């Protein structure tokens, strides 16, 4: 089982490595992070914060692109092009196929996030080397090479995995356009999810309140994964908070993959 899942995952990764579009995307993100150095030059005093801000935002945006655009094709493309016929008659169970696809994209995202994080740290290191004085100025609330940025990257990664599981879920039964639209929609809604929990406070009807509550549990809650602001301003993000948020993410991913398997299991490939 592990070998089969591993092979499927490895080939998702291999495909992404050979994909020129992905390279361009990552290259662009790295350039953007590098470019934040120039923006930092323009705004005296705020440079470090702006660089961190832009770096994290760029990583988040490009990570999202990768998760959605590769994610919605993961299963759909194989079914549409019928390459799945060759795979699923081999000793590959359908749930192993789904799990392998997910883990493959998870690996791709991990490498990409790591590259973008490294690019951000490289720009920051360059800054503090070129102009040591700003390091001291801003260092009061957060050091230039703040290791706590890694927590923001870690939670960002967890968030992208949730998005990936959603994209993959849609791709087991819908075309890429529809899947991408739904996934982006859920991504946006997921950031305002917290409001749904308190929907009953704003509306009169109890039914609407219940609906809000139901949606709150059903839709992904993505806002807690976003600790960019805290990281930039050097505020502490407790480890427990990170662990709980990651745990929630894991549960949500497990539920999404389980649903994907249930749908995929009984599907006719025609």
């Amino acid at each position, binding site marked *: 089982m592990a070998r089969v899942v591993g092979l499927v995952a490895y080939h998702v990764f291999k495909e992404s490595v050979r994909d020129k579009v992905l390279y361009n995307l990552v290259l662009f993100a790295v350039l953007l992070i590098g470019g934040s150095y120039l923006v930092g030059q323009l705004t005296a005093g705020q440079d470090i914060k702006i660089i961190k801000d832009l770096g994290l935002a760029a990583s988040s945006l490009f990570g999202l692109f990768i998760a959605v655009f590769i994610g919605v094709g993961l299963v759909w493309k194989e079914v549409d092009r019928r390459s799945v016929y*060759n795979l699923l008659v081999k*000793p590959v169970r359908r749930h192993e196929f789904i799990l392998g696809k997910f883990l493959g994209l998870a690996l791709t995202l991990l490498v990409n996030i790591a590259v973008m994080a490294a690019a951000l740290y490289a720009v920051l290191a360059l800054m503090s080397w070129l102009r040591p004085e700003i390091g001291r100025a801003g260092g009061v609330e957060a050091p230039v090479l703040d290791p706590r940025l890694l927590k923001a990257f870690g939670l960002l990664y967890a968030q992208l995995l949730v998005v990936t599981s959603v994209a993959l879920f849609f791709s087991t039964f819908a075309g890429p356009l529809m899947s991408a639209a739904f996934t982006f929609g859920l991504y946006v809604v997921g950031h305002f999810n917290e409001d749904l929990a308190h929907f009953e406070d704003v509306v009169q009807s109890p039914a609407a309140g219940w609906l809000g509550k139901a949606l709150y549990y059903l839709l992904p809650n993505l806002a807690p994964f976003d600790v960019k602001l805290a990281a930039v301003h050097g505020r502490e993000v407790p480890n427990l908070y990170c662990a709980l948020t990651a745990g929630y993410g894991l549960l949500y991913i497990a539920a999404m993959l389980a649903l994907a398997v249930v749908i995929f299991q009984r599907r006719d490939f025609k």
Partner: protein
Amino acid sequence: MLALETDRLTKDYAVGFWRRRPYRALDGLSLQVEAGEVFGLLGPNGAGKTTTLKLLMELIYPTSGRIAILGHPPGHPEVRRRAGFLPEAPYFYDYLTAEELLSYFAGLFGLRDGARRARVAALLDLVGIGGERRLALRKCSKGMLQRVGLAQALLNEPDLVFLDEPMSGLDPLGRRDVRAIVLGLRDRGCTVVFSSHILSDAEALCSRVGILVGGRLVAAGRLSDMLAFEVEGWELVMAGLDEAALGALGSRVRRATPLGGGRYAIELPPVDDPDCAVAGLRARGGRLVSLNPMRATLEDYFVRQVEARAGGPAAGRTVPER
């Protein structure tokens, strides 16, 4: 031992956008294939051949009916381990080469390192892919993809293979290669079930065939039985004859065609004993050039079977009201 058995296998597809209604692509197929047999699944376009093979590989699920492959239900781990499948017009990943693809699939069967490389190389040689094995599959021609498809179906040295139109897209040399591969599989004791439109291939390879028309099995049996039933007479070619000699045979001659230089091609009806005719003609100075049974080809038989059903069950199959 039966390698494959289906019992009243039926598949309905849902068609129509607004009003989904079932369309019966396969209707009560009951089939038995012995281990070691080469079985040909024949039928016109849309007969349900691909549907049948996909059901057997559990790529689609039956509406009703039962399947046993090597004594197991389809999709059973044992079936996955011991069976091979070549889909119709196979497609693979653009980003891999033939070699990488086979290596990937060999890994799924648990082959490792040296054994894996050796198996992959041997199969690529077998299906006649040389230097192109390092070429991205996106740049491969149709016939090459077909060969790669055949190679990947044989990676696990299967006991049973299902080939959906293995000859399609191949040049004459390729078809000859595939015929040789199928015969090699048979000699190894592997059961082969394949669908085809190319009846001469079926005739050359199969021990038994089944003919599907409009989702129904209209004929199944040994080729020799099907076609022996259809022996249509004898064709005799003799030299050194004249009109008078021919006349002596009288009404037994169905047709006599002069070939020039005193040679005649003579058609005798199937009931006749050709030895008798040959002896009679020899006595009048004729020399035997050749004597051949005139068999109906599988094609004649096939066309007759299909035409008999035209406008019958094939036309506008909808599922009967229950």
